[in-house]
């Protein structure tokens, strides 16, 4: 791999934006890759969105800025409205269509799941939605970072409900398999 992978995650404060970025970044480190993550808070948290910008590469990372995300997990409408413009035709946008509306004509690859409802139904709490998204993201990434790396990191970075989080992660992967098995990046 000589190209870099850009992952953008944005949403409200408290939705796990930073934690999701940390899991992605740390899983990359576990896989022996270089990674950087910029987090923003302050005005941004007060302004309706928090953002983590994760870069993954097998070379040392120069610019840590996500300019054209390969993967964009948009957890709020504000997140899409603010950063949707960065997306290119190759960008995979992960969103819950009930909460984040992406225009029909947006030239991106949409991966829509009612993650909160799914998490609430399966695991009793919509808070597990972002671990479910991590599962989908990991499946999209392919073999670059293994599911074992992700699982290890989820266990490391989770203090409560570890087993449920791990289950939500694998459920995300299973959802991807059942819906987008044929997807080729």
């Amino acid at each position: 791999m000589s190209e870099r992978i850009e992952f953008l995650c944005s949403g409200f404060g408290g939705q796990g934006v930073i934690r999701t970025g940390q899991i992605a970044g740390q899983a990359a480190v576990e896989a022996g890759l270089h990674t950087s993550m910029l987090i923003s808070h302050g005005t941004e948290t007060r302004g309706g969105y928090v953002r983590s910008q994760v870069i993954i590469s097998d070379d040392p990372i120069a610019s840590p800025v996500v300019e054209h995300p390969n993967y964009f997990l948009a957890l709020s409408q504000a997140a899409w409205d603010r950063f949707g413009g960065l997306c290119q035709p190759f960008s995979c946008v992960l969103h819950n269509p009930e909460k984040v509306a992406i225009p029909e004509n947006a030239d991106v690859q949409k991966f829509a799941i009612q993650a909160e409802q799914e998490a609430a139904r399966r695991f009793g709490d919509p808070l597990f939605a972002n671990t479910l998204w991590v599962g989908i993201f990991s499946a999209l990434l392919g073999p670059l970072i293994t599911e074992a790396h992700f699982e290890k990191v989820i266990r490391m970075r989770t203090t409560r409900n570890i087993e449920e989080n791990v289950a939500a992660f694998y459920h995300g992967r299973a959802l991807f398999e059942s819906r987008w098995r044929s997807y080729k990046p």
Partner: protein
Amino acid sequence: MKRIFETGNAAICEGAILAGCRLFAGYPITPATEIAENMSRRLPEEDGFYLQAEDEIAALHICNGASLGGLKAMTATSGPGYILFADAFGWALSSEIPVVIVNSQRVGPVSGITGAPGQGEFYLSRYLAHGGNYETIVLAPASVQEAFLLTVRAFYLAERFRTPVTILADQMVTDGWETLLLPETAEDIEEMDLIFYDRQVHPGPDFYPPTDDIDIPPVVLGHNTGGACSDWTPTLKGHDTEDIELHHQHAWRLIHKILNHRELIDDAEEWEVDDAEIILVAYGTPSRVVKSAVSEGRLQGLRIGGIRLISLWPFQDKLFQRKASYLVVELNWDGQLVREVERAARANSVHFWGRCGELPTVKELLLTTQQILEGKTISREAWKTVRWSHV
């Protein structure tokens, strides 16, 4: 080698502890709070001391006092706290006592914006003490790994030069997460080129001689050497004096111990500068976008180069003697580094790209580069960059 995913804040703490720092005094402030938090957890494990000071004035003075007693000490802050260091910084500088200061720059002026990056203290880090008549050492990390490495180096330089050393970081370096390698064995330390300098004790009772020598140990009290030091102009014995001749000697030592040994301090990275028509200049996190812009620009056939300053002060004029245009990229709107580059680059044309709170993108930097190469005035929406737009 331990390989982890960590923040610049944690990297700075690990670097400090490895370099022998055993006292941290600070006052929580975004975005440097996690340095204090990490130190409060780590220092007791190393028989060290973590103090929450009543304010930043006290924080650096506590560090100075500890260093005066022989402990290696560090404090960390951001802009609003940094300005309060002025008093104690001057004391350490003039008394020639080692201490390490971290400033994670955020958006100013004053309280500004807490959790976004800025680069507004380039000159303040040079002129934090009033009164002039000194040189000072300022280092600028651009990554989590470098935050670790430069913290180790800051302690090393502080000891050898008997002086405060400032690490001028930014919010993205300190809050950002990245792959971090930490040495676990002596071989690891060697592989990372880490060097350390133990605290030595000045034999006293005389003060430092009027030379530009480094490696003269700082005054350490409590060893009954009859050591004396103060922020007043010292006599050869370290007593206070109003004698202007003695002041000349003191000022000469403060300036030339640093300038005459600057090969130990000077540090920079250059990319593709040899045939460059235009050279982008930056320090800290923006310099990483510059690096990407240089690679990308070269692919597009532009004769573009880049300079990343790793040590900021004393300023490295020698880097700006090439016949080329310079575009200085900073996280502020007023232009600070650019003034120094323009002075150093003399006849060459110097331009400024500034913003704060958000990094530039490669796309933006290449667009500006094109404009300059085509002889156009740099213009951005709603901004007339009068001062720095000339070609």
